[in-house]
């Protein structure tokens, strides 16, 4: 698996005296969706936070396209091509929709593509066209958006960073069923059209497995199962025991 877009090896991390991640390893191939499942407190959010640099690992490695990002601060990880949409979307409500989007397109890494001011503005405009609900209110503060629209804004903003790896933390949390479907559709589209590697944390195991290629089940900070999504969805005992459906 040398062609992994994201590779996490024996990662351990925690808060104070508590280890929320004890020993987590996973690899994700390019242009795949890996869904991370598990009960509350299993360490899913901590895994994403450790990958994106918000939490410093106590042990282990984080590699993105063979670049070692272990223990780097979040701004460096972001500039290396990892976009993290945190739990609760992280839209800055006081800024306008457009300003949120501009923030996304602000820290492009130099990879040969045009990084000029005009290119950024064009990318923001393109995002507004793609998500007309956002485009229509681009000059309004993000606070006026609904929960589902904010989640879309957060994802759109993450995409504007031109990431190689996208980390999504419970994008469906607190959304109405219709919005949940929209978000899930968008995620599976992204993989198809842009070759993005996505690490998705979800409570909604059934819906997430339906769009994922691979599933990883965490319990108390360790990996208890890694398999392709179909296999996991078919494993009734595992589902009952860890996923609750």
């Amino acid at each position, binding site marked *: 698996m040398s062609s992994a877009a994201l590779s996490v090896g024996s990662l351990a991390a*925690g808060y104070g*005296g508590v280890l929320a991640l004890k020993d987590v390893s996973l690899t994700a191939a390019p242009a795949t969706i890996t869904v991370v499942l598990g009960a509350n*407190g299993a*360490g899913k*959010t901590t895994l994403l936070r450790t990958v994106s640099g918000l939490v410093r690992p106590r042990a282990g490695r984080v590699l993105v396209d063979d670049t070692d990002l272990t223990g780097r601060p979040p701004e460096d990880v972001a500039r290396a091509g990892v976009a993290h949409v945190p739990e609760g979307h992280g839209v800055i*409500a006081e800024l306008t929709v457009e300003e949120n989007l501009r923030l996304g397109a602000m820290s492009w890494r130099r990879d040969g593509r045009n990084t000029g001011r005009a290119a950024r503005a064009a990318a923001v405009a393109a995002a507004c066209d793609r998500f007309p609900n956002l485009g229509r209110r681009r000059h309004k503060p993000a606070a006026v958006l609904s929960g589902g629209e904010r989640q879309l804004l957060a994802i759109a903003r993450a995409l504007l960073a031109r990431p190689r790896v996208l980390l999504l933390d419970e994008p469906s949390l607190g959304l109405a069923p219709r919005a949940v479907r929209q978000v899930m559709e968008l995620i599976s589209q992204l993989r198809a059209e842009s070759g993005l590697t996505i690490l998705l944390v979800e409570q909604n195991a059934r819906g997430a497995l339906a769009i994922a290629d691979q599933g990883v089940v965490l319990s108390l900070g360790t990996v208890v199962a890694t398999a392709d999504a179909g296999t996991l969805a078919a494993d009734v005992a595992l589902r009952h025991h860890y996923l609750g459906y």
Partner: protein
Amino acid sequence: MSRHLGAAALVAILVALLSIRLTQFRDFQMAQVAVYVTAVAGLTVLTGLSGQISLGNGAFMAIGGYGTALLLLHLAWPLAAVLAASAAIAALAGALVGAATARLHGPYLAGATLLLAVALPSLTYKYPGVFGGEQGLNVTVSAPGSVPLTRWQAWITCGCALLTLVLLANLSASRIGRNWRAVRDDEVAAALAGVNVAWARILAFVVSAACAGLAGSLLAVTTGLVAPTDFTVTLSVALLTGAVIGGLGSLAGAVWGSLLVVLVPTYATDVATSHGLSSAVGSNIPVAAYGVVLIVVMLVFPNGIQGGLRRLAARVVPSPRRDEPVPAEMNNTAVRNASREASHEEIPKTPARRRARGRIGGGGRRLRLLEHERQQQLGRADGLGAGDHQQRDPDR
């Protein structure tokens, strides 16, 4: 209670013996440190226990000091009664200020109290007939028998400082102290657990103002004079500095902080004058050095001197508790309490306290969950800094 009293008695004997051996000037310095300990300990309770900042406790000292001068001048009460009355007057002022600022937090409270410290002494200029204007008022006390006056002043101030420390230690271990901590950690949870938040906050101001009033009274007694220049903002700032530098977690910190605030400038001045520096340079080097000390101590000991000493002690004698395995599914509250445990070890853990903490902590957790939902609606996390966030907002 008896443990605190025993320790205080021991220190009192030591102080008495020491004061006899010391020169007049050292006796005076000892008295000064004791004055600061009295005031800083009160501020440690206000800021460290109840979580309210005050940049205005110098104003309460002014009230105590002028109260003492006026009582001695016009009524000629015995000294003990004057000290008690001065503390009581300051406590009353503390109640007023506490009530007026009960809704203020952080920098808003700092601003209001800072302006109090600036504004109050200006009254003495407005009413020079009563307060003696710029010259101030004289305060004369006499020592009994053949005891030298400075030694007598050192005894009085040290005795009052010790008494204050004992009373505050007992207070902080009592239900009132628990309520203050609860209010400091989480006002809403404390309210849900049955704590009257407004009263707790006002009471903390009353206690701290009483200490400052007593300290101001003692200052008047030791210097023999009260004047507006004794009670400038610099004094209020020095008190807060002493409390934070010493370590807000415990009353012992108040002693360290007072020693530093009183002795570093004096020591630096001694060094500067003994090297025969010119007056402009000589009088300002101590000031600059004091600034450097403040910055360095704060950077080296983020939890104050007492916190630093404790950390050093822990390194020498490793505590077994730290190596205990902690289950990964420990919740938010448990983590917060665990970290809190580390910073406030000085209070004995009684079963009652554990119960109170459990109850309050539980309320906090529920509330944090509610708060989380609200934040989602409003679309942002709280305004804590990034580093803070990592520590305080673990995996849910």
